[in-house]
């Protein structure tokens, strides 16, 4: 052993660099390949998200002939009493809907997570129903329930459902599952030790609720508030169907662009709509980070104890809400299969004879299926692989940061605004990509972009959960990264990948907002057909088409459930101990 030569200049002529030049690690084929692909993802996102937004922004400063006019469009907007009034309308509608929705969702989530009432799993499932239909569906249902010939018209005491009341009811229904998911998550990560401490100190139930439960869920509540607020203020389906003469920002964009072909004013309204969405996005990101920091590793999950009185109260309250959700769906279904709701209830399928109506007929349904399948397939591949590259490309921090930013950007962009940006960008004669305009491809690209962020975050979460050293081990064994990607990363992340695929499929089936500006006579979509049939007064066929969408997404969901219990359970045998 040569302990003497342990340290310091060796007795050997080992070259020492004259100057301490920084070491730049050479790239191997893996690195180059990954970087090239990451750059490709960045390029795709730039084209699909950033440039359309830029087009929208610049359009708002231009006259209709394309000359720069500064803020004059904004001045014209401010001077237009009807348009500016929509800001106020949008704001208070959104605030009111958000308050009601978050309150109801909190009670419901509390029932599911913190009581021992029976049927919690069923309640959880029922609450997901609104996600499976376009926001047009609850609005149509509400018209059937409370409209001029509505069953329960009397409950409104002479008020009209067409306007604020209808919008708020529809939005609460439609945004309920979004709020519920966030609040349920916040309530389920709780530390039992705090509850035991509180009980040991003989605090009353109410005091425990105020000092332990609420503070623990506060980030979730704030996050849910902002998410719901954004969804409501940017939603277009509900106010379009049930808003009547009551104007909000989202319907203004549609009217300006589709009705009056005033693209500049559409761009201005779009930018205004972008503001609350961006603000909500920033607040939400911040809250999410704090929420995850709240739970220490040593926290013990809290298991609620049975309490007959509490359980009964929550059972009743949740039952009422669940029934309300089921009623909305049921009414739409019954109206779609009745000869003439509510006067002639003889069952018929004539409302499903879409080829006899405006809106694209059954063709639009098949278009939607194609679009959703393509979006799901291509979107899942691109998004998951993109997330993989962002997480696993060695070094290259700037580009990874850029892609991460571009991937999260769509979360802050309302669908209508994105769709409008697509018109400006892809319909420009100067853009070689304008061949895409009016094709199925642009619908798929737009829909993937629209729902990119949530899917990306799901993928990133899954990727972060697997051991960061897999890539290191592979590199030391000289195995190329794509082999590890296909042999290890992909199988391990399969559940998350299926989640993403389902999420994209369901949203592609139900979305209206972005694609409403982009479809052509050959590429009409089911959700857009619902809108157009309702617009043309064919309300029952609109309900029928909405039901078709609902049934399709529900069927896919069930298929997925079966898949996870069957094939997935077998291929993932290694998970079991």
């Amino acid at each position, binding site marked *: 052993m040569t*302990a003497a030569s342990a340290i310091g200049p060796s007795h050997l002529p080992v070259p020492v660099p004259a100057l301490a030049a920084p070491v730049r*690690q050479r790239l191997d084929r893996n690195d180059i390949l990954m970087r090239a692909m990451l750059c490709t993802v960045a390029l795709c996102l730039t084209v699909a998200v950033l440039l359309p937004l830029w087009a929208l922004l610049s359009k708002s400063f231009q006259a209709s002939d394309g000359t720069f006019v500064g803020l004059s469009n904004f001045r014209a907007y401010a001077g237009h009493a009807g348009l500016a009034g929509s800001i106020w309308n949008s704001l208070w509608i959104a605030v009111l809907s958000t308050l009601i929705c978050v309150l109801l969702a909190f009670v419901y989530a509390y029932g599911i997570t913190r009581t021992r009432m029976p049927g919690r799993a069923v309640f959880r499932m029922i609450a997901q129903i609104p996600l499976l239909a376009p926001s047009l569906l609850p609005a149509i249902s509400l018209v059937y329930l409370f409209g001029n010939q509505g069953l329960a018209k009397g409950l409104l005491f002479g008020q009209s459902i067409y306007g604020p009341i209808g919008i708020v009811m529809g939005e609460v229904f439609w945004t309920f599952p979004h709020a519920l998911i966030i609040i349920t998550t916040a309530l389920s990560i709780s530390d039992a030790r705090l509850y035991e401490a509180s009980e040991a100190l003989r605090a009353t139930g109410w005091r425990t609720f105020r000092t332990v439960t609420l503070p623990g869920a506060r980030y979730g509540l704030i996050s849910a508030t902002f998410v719901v607020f954004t969804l409501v203020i940017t939603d277009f389906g509900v106010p379009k169907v049930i808003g009547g003469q009551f104007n909000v920002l989202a319907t203004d964009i549609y009217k300006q662009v589709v009705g009056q072909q005033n693209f500049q004013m559409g761009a201005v309204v779009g930018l205004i709509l972008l503001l609350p969405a961006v603000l909500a996005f920033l607040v939400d990101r911040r809250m999410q980070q704090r929420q995850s920091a709240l739970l220490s590793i040593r926290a013990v999950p809290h298991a609620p104890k049975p309490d007959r009185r509490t359980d009964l109260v929550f059972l009743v309250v949740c039952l009422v809400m669940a029934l309300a959700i089921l009623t909305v769906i049921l009414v739409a279904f019954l109206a779609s299969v009745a000869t003439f709701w509510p006067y002639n209830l003889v069952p018929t399928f004539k409302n499903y004879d879409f080829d006899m109506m405006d809106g694209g007929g059954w063709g639009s349904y098949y278009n939607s299926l194609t679009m959703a399948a393509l979006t799901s397939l291509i979107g899942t591949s691109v998004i998951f692989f993109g997330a993989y590259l962002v997480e696993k490309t060695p070094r290259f921090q700037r580009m990874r940061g850029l892609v991460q930013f571009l991937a999260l950007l769509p979360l802050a962009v309302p669908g209508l605004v994105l769709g409008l940006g697509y018109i400006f960008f892809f319909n420009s004669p100067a853009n070689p990509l304008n061949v895409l305009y009016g094709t199925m491809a642009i619908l798929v690209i737009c829909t993937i972009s629209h729902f990119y962020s949530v899917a990306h975050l799901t993928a990133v979460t899954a990727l972060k959960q697997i051991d960061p050293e897999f890539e290191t*081990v592979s590199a030391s064994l*000289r195995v190329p990264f794509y082999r590890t990607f296909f042999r290890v990363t992909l199988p391990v992340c399969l559940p998350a990948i299926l989640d993403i695929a389902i999420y994209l499929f369901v949203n592609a089936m139900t979305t209206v907002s972005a694609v409403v500006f982009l479809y052509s006579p050959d590429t009409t979509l089911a959700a857009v057909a619902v809108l157009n049939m309702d617009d043309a007064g064919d309300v029952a066929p609109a309900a029928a088409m909405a039901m078709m969408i609902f049934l399709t997404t529900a069927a896919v969901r069930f298929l997925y459930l079966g898949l996870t219990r069957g094939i997935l359970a077998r291929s993932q045998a290694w998970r079991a101990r």
Partner: protein
Amino acid sequence: MAAAPPAEPYLVIRNVTKEFGSYRALDNISLDIEAGDFVSFLGPSGCGKTTLLRAISGLDVQTTGTIRQAGRDISNLPVSQRDFGIVFQSYALFPNLSIRGNVAYGLVSTGRPRAETDRRVKELLDLVGLADQIDKYPAQLSGGQQQRVALARALALSPGLLLLDEPLSALDARVRARLRGEIRDLQTRLGITTIMVTHDQEEALTMSDRIVVMSKGRIEQVGTPDEIYARPATPFVADFVGRMNFLKGRLAATAQIEVQGAVFQIAEPMPFAPGTEVTVCIRPEDVVVRQIDGSTLNAVDVQVGVMEFIGNHFATSLHVTGTSLGFSADLSMNDVRDLGIAPGIAIRASLPPDRLRVFASPPV
């Protein structure tokens, strides 16, 4: 004797510095590692030991400096072009592949025949004693077994260098102690140059040929386990490895120190002027209480203070009579029984000169 020029050490690290922004994680590290040695990087968290390992592996290359492995400059090579196998604290076994799939992972892409791969996998699993677990999945094995699979996988391509990043930290104490011996035994049999990062001194002391003690991005000492323990080069090493009494004193003469009223001889003269402030170190187990007579050096009268029963010895505090000096001593059960030592009684104790370590700096 010095006819043929000696071969260059297997791993030669020169002036390696790693900066994260303004934070300097490695500060001008130079180190030689001989072929076939088992070397531990030992230090508290944040000392730079893992950073150094990551520089050697190419996972995080150094900011400046060179690293040569087997005569080849690897300073700026990508991970895939270096020659090492690595085992992590988390094992990083692929959960969806069987043990066979895991161990064969690197072999498959070398394009060798299937039969040969199979034979090599069996051979490797025999080596770590897990041949009967070949078709199980990682989650079906215990932590210790998983770590052995990770070891087999790292050795599959017969790398020249084995890197172990806190390999035993995730295991419980009993398994850890057993695996220490198994890994060391395997390493000796294969003769593979091995670097292990650890914060556990016991691990480093029992397994290594040489230990590199690090602190704040610098190397404090390099030596055999015995050297590190018996002759710590700096107060940091003295404090970090084993337990140590730190006593403040002054140099009275070149080979004599005065510690809070007591005077002791030291074995090696100090190259400082009398009056220099020094720190005197002695390990509790080096304090002698038996067979002390007039000729015993550094013998003092002490009063026994608190006695803490540890199991195989008593951690005892002793106060030198007539001074303010106190230190702790590990007294064996025999000492305590034979000499009738109990709290409050007076005995004689000696601090052998060759056991005293004296540093000119204040203690860490």
